[in-house]
């Protein structure tokens, strides 16, 4: 067992043993109040049993023996060989105390976090609390409510910016910003949790496929939100599988083209402002863009005769169901395709790009947000439904007057100061069937992927700071709907990823 790994186990032991002992004491209290209470004995038994197993695994022999002896005593009572008299329960309480002391001593001896739980003792090292992610999610959604209340207060304070209310609103806004940053910080977890699983998996794959691969990992100390990290593992492993299976050539094939027989796969993370950039690199054969283009044309999904750019290549590869694998291998033939990788990444607000050179290798670059964001967004409505879109992409709002609408290359366009912008109707995107079409409709002009588009909607209802939560998407839901939020009036709204609409 490596030192780092052992330290992690000791930390887990510390937090689990403590919370189990706290639970056992609480159960013992109930048992003392009501000696006929059977559930308490069960709960204490499970706690002791778990602690014993953990202690034995860490070779805390004295602690394990002590817990085992206590468990045996408890076993006699559970079997009915012995009554749980008040005196016995009192002794048992002392036994639990001894176990606490033995655990703390073992943790300290193992170089774990500082001695704990004795009032008045100074803590050393970081103090750690385990928190259910659901609780942090609840905290985040409470924060969302508070952010809305702040917006309401700010709207009212605007009437007189020198009033005491306006000053109080400003102070509250500052504190709220700090609070928000702190809550989002609490949710951070190191990339190492996902990265440390990579090398053994890649090595095993390489063995199965007869490849010789060296893997290099950097930047695993960077942190991202737990919810984002949880979504990262599968897509990342998929990209790595592809790299080993389709990227890296066999040692002989590599020698034949003058490469070193050992292929290199790199996973590098670096901070970039509020985001983390992940690069998954391989020095394999690269992606054959002409072959992909030919196949895409044969399937009728690509009309253009021009060579595919890297972006164009990714756009083809990420189409649901598109696959270049002629014969299904045991490795990449199963599992999710690149379409699923891209969809999963978009759900957490990440974007993916690709660079590939035939014969030289491929780099997938993932720009990953580190925090679940609070997004400044525009609220629009279609019928009674509400959709929000991040303001980062929005350029302006224009009224879609009939005389501004025209045709160009067979597409409806909106003329805005002489520029013809393709029109996308949100009603049509959503397959909305309501007949409550307003006579005049606004268009949201936005820019994404280097293209300007006019998005027709029914109404523009204002701006919000939306606390965006990832959604569990039902099958068939449009992939450009990437999150959900709750508006001031308590209504739910879906977040649109404008970049995927284009």
């Amino acid at each position: 067992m490596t030192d780092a790994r052992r330290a992690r186990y000791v930390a887990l032991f510390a937090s689990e043993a403590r919370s189990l002992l706290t639970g056992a004491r609480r159960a013992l209290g109930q048992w003392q109040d009501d000696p006929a209470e059977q559930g308490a004995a069960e709960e204490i038994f499970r706690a002791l049993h778990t602690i014993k197993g953990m202690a034995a695994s860490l070779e805390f022999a004295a602690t394990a023996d002590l817990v085992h002896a206590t468990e045996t005593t408890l076993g006699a009572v559970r079997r009915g060989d012995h009554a749980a008299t008040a005196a016995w329960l009192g002794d048992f309480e002392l036994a639990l105390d001894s176990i606490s002391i033995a655990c703390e001593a073992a943790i300290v001896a193992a170089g774990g976090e500082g001695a704990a739980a004795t009032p008045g003792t100074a803590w050393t090292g970081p103090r750690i609390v385990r928190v259910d992610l659901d609780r942090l999610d609840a905290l985040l959604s409470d924060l969302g409510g508070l952010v809305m209340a702040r917006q309401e207060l700010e709207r009212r304070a605007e009437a007189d910016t020198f009033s005491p209310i306006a000053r109080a609103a400003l102070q509250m806004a500052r504190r709220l910003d700090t609070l928000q940053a702190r809550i989002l910080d609490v949710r951070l977890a190191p990339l190492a949790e996902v990265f440390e699983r990579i090398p053994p998996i890649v090595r095993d794959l390489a063995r199965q496929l007869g490849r010789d691969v060296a893997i290099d990992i950097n930047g695993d100390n960077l942190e991202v939100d737990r919810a984002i990290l949880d979504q990262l593992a599968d897509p990342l492993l998929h990209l790595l599988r592809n790299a080993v299976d389709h990227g890296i050539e066999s040692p002989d094939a590599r020698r034949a083209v003058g490469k070193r027989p050992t292929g290199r796969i790199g996973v590098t993370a670096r901070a970039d402002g509020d985001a983390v950039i992940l690069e998954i690199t391989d020095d394999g054969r690269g992606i054959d863009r002409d072959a992909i283009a030919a196949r895409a044309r044969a399937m009728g999904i690509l009309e253009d005769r021009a060579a595919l750019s890297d972006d164009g290549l990714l756009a083809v590869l990420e189409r649901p169901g598109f696959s270049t694998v002629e014969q299904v291998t045991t490795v990449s033939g199963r599992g999710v395709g690149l379409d699923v990788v891209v969809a999963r990444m978009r759900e957490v607000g990440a974007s993916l790009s690709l660079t590939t050179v035939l014969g030289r290798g491929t780099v997938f670059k993932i720009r990953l947000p580190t925090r679940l964001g609070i997004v400044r967004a525009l609220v629009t409505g279609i019928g009674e439904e509400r959709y929000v879109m991040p303001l980062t992409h929005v350029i302006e709002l224009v009224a879609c007057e009939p005389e501004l609408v025209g045709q160009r290359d067979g597409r409806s366009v909106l003329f805005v100061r002489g520029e013809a912008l393709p029109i996308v109707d949100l009603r049509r995107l959503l397959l909305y069937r309501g007949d409550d079409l307003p006579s005049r409709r606004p268009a949201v002009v936005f820019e994404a992927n280097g293209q300007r588009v006019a998005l027709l909607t029914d109404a523009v209802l204002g701006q919000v700071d939306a606390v965006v939560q990832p959604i569990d998407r039902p099958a068939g839901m449009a992939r450009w709907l990437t999150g959900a939020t709750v508006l001031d009036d308590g209504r739910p709204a879906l977040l649109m990823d404008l970049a995927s609409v284009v």
Partner: protein
Amino acid sequence: MAHRILICDDAIFMRTMIADILVSAGYEIAGEAESGLQAVERYKTLKPDLVTMDIVMPDMGGIDAVKAIVAIDANAKILMCSAMGQQSLVVEAIQAGAKDFVVKPFQPARVLEAVQRVLGG
């Protein structure tokens, strides 16, 4: 394709330790469960190639979970993880349909041996 394994244990500590042992040998962790009930639910949705099952867990113990899983899938491959002194429970688990067992504290080599045995048989 690596075999996918579902780890059932009420202690994060144990789940982490088993996961480390399995992952370092190239297995894929399909998911984790912290109670017998959850184990049964996860088995249905994840359809893992193998399950490691602790015996003592809250909300349905490991033995009842084995019975429930075998009722769903007679070919389920379940490996019991027991502490010292639970021989009688291990026998009960095997009768209920578990294929093999390992004893805590885990020796990586023993765990992997048992996993291979169960997957192979």
